[in-house]
């Protein structure tokens, strides 16, 4: 495991700004990230590899707001989204910069508006701010960085959740499980034979 991490970390040098949708994470896989997180958690309470405790608490709060647990299913926090993002950030200076910058912006903005850090703000205030930065139509020079950051936070939270067992189960979606054998469904063969004029 740790060898893989070393290799991938070495690969990320160079490169400028980071556009949404692309992490400079060659040699990195979603399954790999989930698995690494699971292994780490099996050893005991998760200790963030990259974020400070305050950043990590904010990140977890955000993930919880974006995909909350409800009466049907666990949310992004239970599904390991904060750990997933922490793991990726620990492997990518660019992504790390996006999140440290973004989390600082979030805390700064909630302090300015509501005189509290994001995690300590009232739920209504947290929601009001997210509703502002969740939509491009609210773009202003002042909110721009927050909107940019929310895109990233939402994207990675959603990606983490819907590639996790919890998220896959929530949809009643089969997921991309490992297959024990590779076989062609019987109906497909029969159908094809019928259509071929041979059957």
């Amino acid at each position, binding site marked *: 495991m740790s060898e893989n991490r070393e290799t991938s970390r070495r690969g990320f*040098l160079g490169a400028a700004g980071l556009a949404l949708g692309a992490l400079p994470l060659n040699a990195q896989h979603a399954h790999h990230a989930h698995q690494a997180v699971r292994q780490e958690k099996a050893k005991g309470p998760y200790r963030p590899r990259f974020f400070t405790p305050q950043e990590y608490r904010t990140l977890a709060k955000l993930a919880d707001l974006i995909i909350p647990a409800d009466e049907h299913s666990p*949310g992004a926090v239970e599904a390991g989204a904060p750990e997933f993002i922490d793991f990726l950030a620990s492997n990518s200076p660019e992504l790390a910069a996006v999140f440290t910058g973004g989390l600082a912006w979030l805390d700064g903005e909630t302090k300015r508006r509501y005189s509290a850090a994001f995690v300590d703000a009232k739920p209504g205030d947290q929601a009001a701010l997210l509703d502002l930065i969740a939509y491009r139509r609210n773009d202003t020079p002042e909110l721009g960085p927050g909107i940019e950051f929310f895109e990233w936070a939402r994207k990675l939270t959603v990606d983490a959740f819907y590639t996790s067992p919890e998220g896959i189960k929530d949809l009643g979606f089969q997921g991309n499980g490992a297959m024990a054998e*590779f076989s062609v469904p019987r109906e497909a063969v029969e159908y094809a034979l019928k259509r071929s004029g041979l059957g």
Partner: protein
Amino acid sequence: MALERVNAVVVGSGAGGGIVAKELAQAGLRVVLLERGSWVTAYDCRKDDLRNQRTTVLGNAFGPDDERHPRVVVDESGRERTLRASEPGYHNNAGCVGGGTASYGAMAWRFMEKDFRMRSTYGAVPGSTLEDWPLSYADLEPYYEKAEWEIGVSGDDAGNVFRAPRRRPLPMPPLPPNRECQVLRPAALRLGLHPFDIPMLRNSVPYNGRPACMRCRWCVGFACEVDAKCGTQNTVIPAALKTGNCELRCDCVAGQVLLDERGRAAGVAYFDARGRYREQPADLVVVSCAAIESARLLLNSRSRLFPKGLGNRHDWVGRNLQGHTYPRAAGLFDFELYDDQGPGAGIAVCDYNHGNPGLAGGGMLANEFIRLPYQFVAQVPRSAGRWGRGHKEFMRKWYRRSMSVMGPVQEMPMFDSRVEVDPVVKDHWGIPVARLSGGKHPHTLEVARYMAGKAEAWLKEAGAIHTWTVVPGPGLSGGQHQAGTCRMGGDPRTSVVNRYCQVHDVDNVFVIDGSVHVTNGGFNPVLTIMALAYYASAHLVKTWKGTRMRS
């Protein structure tokens, strides 16, 4: 150390290059096939959700890599950015043995007769370089057939009353319809449309020594672990290697076509897997790097006789970059459509490819390949919110009860949508990178809006209780369906290659890939690229005289 001279260097082992290499090798030419990427297998790509050729959050599984292949892209507002290969807006196709065919969705479309005669059919479109091809559907028909039988296509287009004449049916029957197809077919018939089973480069029955598709759903953007998806990497490239006349060199990046003092190609300069500069002498050079990189290679091949790049005397290399504009409609249903049956897309109509009132061209419409959940999130309507309980509930309620219909709109080519080489930015090997700029023609967007409406009507007829449409913006096209940058034509002043894909000014250089498309059809382009590769190879072999072309 000089490398031994060969008859032909083919640069790029994708759809076009793979076929040319095999045809030339079988005809007895000694061929070197250069590929900048590696031979990627299903094992390497591991079908990772976030790292494949469609969802590239964690990088391109089928290349090129992020570290060594930057590109410069200029957007509509003139803002210039240097992008990594997996970033949106880079306009990537692929970088591995097989090119796009190793991971594609594998729709196998023949263009229609009118697609080769867009200018005569619709007249000039102001602001567009719309033109006829210098060859017709009939010229390509035997080669479409060859591609269908050699590479392998399943499907049944008998229900497509608009299709151009074919001599031979497809070699394999279609896969069984998934639930979406079962719902869409009767709806299309009720609307008076003509639905049929999409031709696909995918084995529905064992064919060519490889097994049938097991319908795994992780198909478009991934490699097939049972090799049921047919690309050049599991058909013609192995056949080329088997002749003993073709050597495939992976991880080799071509930087320049070398020219002699008389202005003819002398070979190709490249960097090998260990980063060493090499020169491969050859009697002829085939450029098959896909539309963006082929133009870049020609533009980077400057000499005294071609100061603006090889074949670029009249400034047409890199022009007319196009792809497809994909309008789509999404619908929510009060019954389940999800049945986990890959590859997903299966049904199409060609009722709107031509003959749309007041419009030039159109496109086919089909159901979507796959919408993995994290992809579906991007389509959640704004009313559901972008975070929180409502958003999560929307996903839970509708993911399995939704589908999309979409189609590739034939674009009006634009002279100013183009590939240049960047004056400053260089790649890992010091080669100037591609610089992309331009946008879509307004008429393309008009057609796209019309098509979105047709797609939406189909979903409504199928029983959708809520629908919405998405039409792309005016930004540059290209991407996976990139084409057009080395246009073929009869007049050397307004095209780059002749009807046999031979560069007008230099008879021993050929461009054989999507670059030569004059227009890109209202269909995914790969089967046309394959047919052209067989067609151009046949002519090349016929005119080949030992070490040079017969003139």
